[in-house]
């Protein structure tokens, strides 16, 4: 059989999502952002939501998310994405509104907006990339940096007495009455990717069903910031990150 007999539309099982732009991403090889972007693009396409989706981009590595995911986007100031999403959704309740934020954006400078948007039960979905480091600014300590972890601003390792403790903010959000769905996922294996996709889809569906705020934390790697090759970064994440940030649902109402 000739290979051209196999390459036919009816045999196609996988393709680039229509809403993921055919362009070079600026993300480092091995970074989790590209996988999560692809999942969002796939889900929006599967939900036929491309005409009603409005994304909110963060400040951080994903600041250019709007260059890759082909729906309307508003670029928020650092940490303000949940406030921005609040207004978009309140003013246009028929739209699918989601934020895409890193750990510094969501759990440090934007803590107040995260907590209060979830506490008001805003009908938005929050996708939260937790790689325990500030990637874009060059690998400084994040609120989620593990104790002992070396970063540009904790060169001898994070110390509780100097820097406080890693913040499991999803556990905090899960305590709030306005949050309907809080889950922690990862994208380091094909099985994990499928689970993460189901979680993000559920969060998007919750927002359209008016159930309240959903937060999907993706425990991620930052091989550049962690100074590890991609495969080793995945191993390091399994060994260290999952202990502090265990995978699974924290709340599912």
């Amino acid at each position, binding site marked *: 059989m000739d290979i051209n007999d196999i390459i036919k539309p009816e045999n196609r099982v996988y393709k680039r999502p229509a809403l993921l732009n055919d362009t070079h991403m600026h993300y480092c090889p091995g970074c989790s952002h590209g996988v999560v972007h692809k999942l969002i693009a796939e889900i929006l396409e599967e939900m036929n939501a491309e005409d009603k989706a409005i994304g909110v981009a963060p400040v951080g590595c994903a600041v250019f998310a709007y260059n890759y995911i082909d729906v*309307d986007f508003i670029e928020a100031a650092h940490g303000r994405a949940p406030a921005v999403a609040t207004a978009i959704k309140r*003013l246009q309740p028929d739209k699918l509104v989601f934020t895409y934020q890193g750990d510094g954006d969501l759990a440090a400078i934007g803590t107040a907006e995260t907590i209060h948007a979830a506490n008001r039960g805003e009908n938005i979905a929050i996708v939260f990339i937790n790689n325990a480091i500030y990637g874009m600014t060059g690998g400084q300590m994040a609120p989620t940096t593990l104790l002992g972890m070396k970063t540009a601003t904790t060169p001898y390792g994070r110390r509780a007495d100097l820097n406080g403790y890693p913040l499991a903010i999803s556990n905090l959000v899960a305590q709030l009455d306005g949050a309907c769905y809080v889950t922690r996922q990862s994208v380091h294996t094909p099985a994990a990717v499928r689970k993460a996709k189901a979680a993000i889809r559920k969060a998007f569906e919750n927002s359209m069903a008016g159930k309240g705020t959903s937060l999907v934390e993706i425990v991620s790697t930052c091989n550049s910031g962690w100074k590890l090759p991609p495969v080793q970064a995945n191993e390091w994440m399994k060994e260290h990150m999952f202990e502090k940030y265990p995978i699974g649902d924290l709340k599912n109402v």
Partner: protein
Amino acid sequence: MEEVRLMKGNEALAHAAIRYGADGYFGYPITPQSEVLETLEDEMPWETTGMVVLQAESEVAAINMVYAGAGCGKAVFTSSSSPGVSLMQEGISYIAASELPALIINVMRGGPGLGTIHPSQADYFQACKGGGHGDYHAIVLAPSSVQEMCDFVSLGWDLAFKYRTPAMILADGIVGQMMEKVVLPEQRPRRTEEQIRQQCPWATTGKKGRKQNIITSLELDDDRMEQNNLRFQRTYREIEKNETRCELINTDGCDYLLVAFGSMARICQKVMELAAEKGIKLGLVRPITLWPFPAQQIADAAKGCKGILTVELDAGQMIEDVKLAVNCNVEVKHYGRLGGNVPTPDEVLAALENLFINK
């Protein structure tokens, strides 16, 4: 239909916004402007026009909600007082840089710091000279009556949408708190989504039938960022050319010229009466737009007069623009009270006499 009511400036502003067909208000309580949020919550416009009213967790969140609403092409606004408006400066810079129409109200109180809850005009520099980071301007309107607190809501939004730029109503605590007769305008309908799609084709309304819209102020290519800045500056020159507004009272052939805005312009009208009794002929220029500043109008009014007194509830801020306007061809002095104090007309006249006549 139009309606005549007796109310505070802050209350009139809230009613005017509902009647304009506003889509959303996002704010945080602070004295002396909390009546704006209180009036809106009391009126429950979400039941009638569908307007959104939300008490945010902070002024920082509120201005970013306004940024988002403006990005969606909606008529949205926030109100605060001086310390709260300081917190909003980053967001105002983003709104200007993203070329979005929004209305921001500052009912000024005395500073610096936590300061006082009593009236002030000491945020003139912040409002007119940028406030936030980068080369930008907001159109700044200075109401001096409850009626103008009402009227400048529609003027502010109309200008903001025309030029896609933030507009600020810079009121002082007196204008926000005093009660006067006001004619409220007719209720206008809110714009439909279809109208917004037509009038604001740049807005994030969902990309139905068009390419993706992105609201952002980020541009890492230096040449493109320079072009963006040059476009902003062209808009500002257009605004300066078309939208400079002021009121001139008895300026023809006056001995001395007063320049004052907001509540101080009202006090200066009494000063003019007292001066006339003493045979001193005073004129008054009341800037209505503080940015763009009515420099040419002041220069024209100052021709032939012996001196200019700026009367401000601050230590001398607008005086700098007045000096630039007359290019030091006329002597310009300042009189102001600080810390929430308000001068009487007698005090102002005595200051004028001491600074110019009996010196």
